[in-house]
Structure formats: structure tokens, C-alpha cells
């Protein structure tokens, strides 16, 4: 991909966030889509490419009245939207379409009109994991962490600090679900979910959606929003069954996706002003910091606990409060992208002064998949 050839020109979340019993899943997609298209100063007629996950892309296109030239239904969990951004850049560069809409909508809390997750016997999960009593993500995503604690010295207190620091960021955001300060003791004394994970180390379950509109950098110049350029991107996948991760202390998918993103962007880590790392659970920012190369192996927990990622720290991380405090519908990646866009536009309630480069890193299907987007407001 060519750095800065494509820009995000429209970005919005659903009108409401949190508890939205009056909209079904497709309704959340549409609400977010119409908000993002309006944000771009465009109309539905201007959209000729559609990408979505968790819902059929053709269904979303039809619901909105779009006959697309390009559709992408890549659905690899919560990082699907980071992957869509990468695919959209490729499609726009190749001339397959001109203006892409990426949508997310999920009735995670109220479960209005949702799709069930398919389970079939030939999946490794159905034969070799589910019979042992793993089910919802807190019982799966967390399984490698005891190994990381022993091998890399990650502590329960450091995991708790991830939640504490992100709550500090959430306090800036009027739309965050949880904004009151918490302490390490609060986290460690919250309800045990799956040892060593307590409730406050686990993400929220809420309703919401978000959408992005992307077009060529040339066209972006004439539109109403300050363009947020896609400087680089990466994606990868490792394993849909967490027991078969090659290394429990590091994600191969994170490492590949991050490497591709930095190489395509042609940037050094020291040039990154703002970072989002999908945090369905408190250990993910630790893995992300290490696997993306912001800190050395085994240093992520201490880096966060020492305050480097909190407001005023040298590497602001998850400045919306993350999936732990802002919102988490199930496929959270879209909300991380939204906060990166706000930071690059200079409009975040937790604005990092002068931020020019934002890295937004997602994970999907436990440690199955990954996507990373590097954004900048500097056309270069």
C-alpha cells in the first residue's frame, strides 16, 4: 500500500451508546452508517464500497439502499474493522471503488435481532476445547495469562493497573459507560470471574455501533472533515483455539500485523503519539505493547503500572477508556478506530496535544486474528 493514499473522511458512533433496546443489530449498523456519511458531508449515493463484519455485507448494503461495486465481508472477530480499513485502501488504490463505508453494529447487551455464532463439529473448538468447560470469552481469552505471569513476571497488580489507568482516561469521555475512579484494590476485590481475572479486568457488554467512510486522499481534500490518512496497515491470524497458540506469552498474529503496519507506514515507534490496543481483557494491552515492539518482551505490565500510558504519560494508550470502561459491544475494534480518528482530528474529549500519528491495534476471536492501522493527520 502507498502511505497516505487513502483517508478517513467520515467517522461516527451510533447516536446512543450503551443500552439501546429500541434498535436491532441491523438498525445499529444503519444508525452508525448514516451518522458517518453525514459527518463526511456525503450522501448514501456517494458510497460505492461496503465492508462489515458480524452481519452480511450484502444485507447491510441492501438495507442502506446501496448497490456496491465492492463488498468485503471479512469477519475475523473484533479486529475485522482494522482489516477492512486495510482492504479498503487496497480496493481504492486498485480503482475497484471510490468511497468505502465500513459499518459495525452490535446489540451486545440487549441482544435485539442478533446473529447466533455458528458452531459446527469440524471446528477444533467444538471437539477439543468446548467439552472442557470453556464458553464465553472470559474463560478462553485468559487461558495463556498464567504462563505469561510465570515466564515474564507479569503480576495481578499490574493487570489491575491496566483497568485503573484506563478508567482515568474514561473519566474524560461523557459517553463512557464507567467514569468513576477505581483503585488496584477495587479491581482485585471485584468478583472472581476466571482466576486470575476479576470482573474489573473484563470488558463491558453494551449495545452500539460505529462506521467509517474512506476515500482517496485526492478526493478527501475537497470534503468537509480534516482528512485522517491511512499511513500503514497490517493484518494476520494465528489460531482460533487458544490452546494451540505457539507461544502463550506472545501473539504471532500481533507480531505479524504490527510488523506489516510499521513497515508499510515507514515510521519508527518513537514517532507514534497515540496508541489504541483492543482490550477485551486487561492482559491485551500488555501483549500488544510487547508484540508491537513499543517495549521489550516482559516489560508491558511494568510499563503500564509505572504510569507511562496514563493521562500525562509518554505513550497515551486507550484514551477512550477502552473496552474495560468506554464500551464493548462484542466486536470492539470499531470504537478503538473511532478514538484514533478523534485524536487525529483533534476532537477527542481526552485529546493528546499535538498528536500526529496514531496506531490502532485490534485482536479478534480470542488470539485468532489481528489487524493494525497507522493513521496520521500529516499528509506528508
Amino acid at each position: 500500500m502507498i502511505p497516505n493514499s487513502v483517508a478517513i473522511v467520515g467517522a461516527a458512533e451510533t447516536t446512543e451508546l450503551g443500552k439501546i433496546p429500541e434498535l436491532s443489530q441491523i438498525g445499529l449498523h444503519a444508525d452508525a452508517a448514516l451518522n458517518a456519511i453525514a459527518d463526511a458531508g456525503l450522501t448514501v449515493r456517494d458510497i460505492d464500497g461496503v465492508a462489515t463484519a458480524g452481519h452480511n455485507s450484502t444485507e447491510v448494503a441492501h438495507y442502506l439502499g446501496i448497490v456496491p461495486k465492492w463488498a468485503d465481508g471479512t469477519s475475523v472477530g473484533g479486529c475485522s474493522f482494522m482489516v477492512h480499513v486495510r482492504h479498503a485502501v487496497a480496493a481504492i488504490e486498485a480503482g475497484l471503488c471510490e468511497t468505502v463505508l465500513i459499518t459495525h453494529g452490535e446489540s451486545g447487551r440487549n441482544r435485539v435481532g442478533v446473529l447466533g455464532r455458528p458452531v459446527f463439529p469440524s471446528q477444533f473448538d467444538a471437539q477439543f476445547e468446548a467439552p472442557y468447560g470453556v464458553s464465553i470469552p472470559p474463560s478462553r481469552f485468559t487461558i495463556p495469562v498464567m504462563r505469561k505471569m510465570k515466564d515474564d513476571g507479569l503480576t495481578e497488580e499490574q493487570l489491575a493497573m491496566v483497568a485503573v489507568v484506563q478508567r482515568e482516561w474514561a473519566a474524560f469521555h461523557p459517553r463512557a459507560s464507567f467514569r468513576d475512579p477505581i483503585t488496584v484494590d477495587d479491581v482485585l476485590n471485584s468478583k472472581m470471574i476466571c482466576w486470575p481475572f476479576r470482573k474489573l479486568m473484563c470488558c463491558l457488554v453494551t449495545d452500539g455501533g460505529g462506521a467509517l467512510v474512506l476515500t482517496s486522499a485526492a478526493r478527501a481534500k475537497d470534503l468537509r472533515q480534516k482528512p485522517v490518512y491511512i499511513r500503514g496497515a497490517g493484518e494476520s491470524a494465528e489460531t482460533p483455539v487458544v490452546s494451540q497458540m505457539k507461544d502463550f506469552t506472545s501473539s504471532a498474529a500481533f507480531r505479524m500485523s504490527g510488523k506489516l503496519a510499521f513497515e508499510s507506514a515507514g515510521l519508527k515507534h518513537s514517532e507514534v503519539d497515540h496508541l489504541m490496543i483492543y482490550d477485551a481483557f486487561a492482559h491485551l494491552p500488555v501483549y500488544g505493547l510487547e508484540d508491537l515492539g513499543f517495549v521489550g518482551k516482559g516489560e508491558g505490565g511494568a510499563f503500564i503500572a509505572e504510569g507511562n500510558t496514563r493521562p500525562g504519560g509518554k505513550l497515551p494508550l486507550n484514551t477512550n477508556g477502552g473496552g474495560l470502561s468506554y464500551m464493548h459491544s462484542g466486536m470492539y475494534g470499531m470504537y478503538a478506530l473511532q478514538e484514533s480518528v478523534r485524536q487525529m482530528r483533534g476532537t477527542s474529549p481526552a485529546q493528546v496535544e499535538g498528536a500526529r500519528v496514531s496506531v490502532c491495534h485490534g485482536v479478534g476471536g480470542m488470539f485468532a486474528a489481528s489487524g493494525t492501522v497507522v493513521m496520521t493527520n500529516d499528509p506528508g
Partner: protein
Amino acid sequence: MSTTDRVVPTPTPETRHYWDGAQAGELRLQRCNACGDAYFPPRPFCPECGSRDVKVETASGRGTLYSYIINHLGAPGMKPPFAVAVVALEEGPRMMANILECEQTPEALVLDMPLEVTFEKITDAITLPQFKPAGAPK
């Protein structure tokens, strides 16, 4: 643990030998004749080198506790709290299991402790390979 509400695996043609083995009280792995790697979960080719020249063999049944959680949420047919573990097998591959005949506490479940395979019949057709502390009484 009740046997009725559990998630019951449905063997496929590619995994039938594994489940037949468990039914017969054997933990079966596959090994590649081309590169020599043992691997799991079952498939009719080697995930390391792609060779279809593979065989089924009986594992030693010895392993160590690689990582785990203690599930306090419960699962169909299983009463919390119970450990969901990943066992590092002596032959190299890792697999998920519960740790039977052991207290389900962080104090009793110590990483890298030696384990040995045991078998838990959950229906007439399906027996799950499980693990217990090595040397635990029958």
C-alpha cells in the same frame, strides 16, 4: 460432574481415530514420517511441513501443567469452580484438559507440575482424555 448436559464432541472422519483411542483408554497423537514432529489436534497431514505421510501413535500420557484458569462462571453440565488447563505433553504438543483428582485452587494447581492422562466417560460414545496429578491414587 453430571454427564448429560456437557458439551459432547462430534467426531469427524479426520478425528475418529483420536476419539476411538480415548474410548479404548489411549491418548493418541499423530506423528509426521517426513519431519518427525508429533502434532495435535488430529488432521490427515502434518501442520509443520504439509506432508500427508503421517501415522497415529499412542502418547506416553505424561505431561506438565502449562497454563490454566479457574472458571467461576460455570459451563453446561459442569459445576464451578473448575480449572480449565492446557497440558504440555511429553511428546511436544499441547492440549486442553480439566485437572481431575486435585483441589481446584491456585495453591494446588502449580504451573509445570507433572500430570498424567486419565479418562472421563461422558456418554456411551464419548470418553474425554483428562489429566490428574502424576502419581495421584486411582
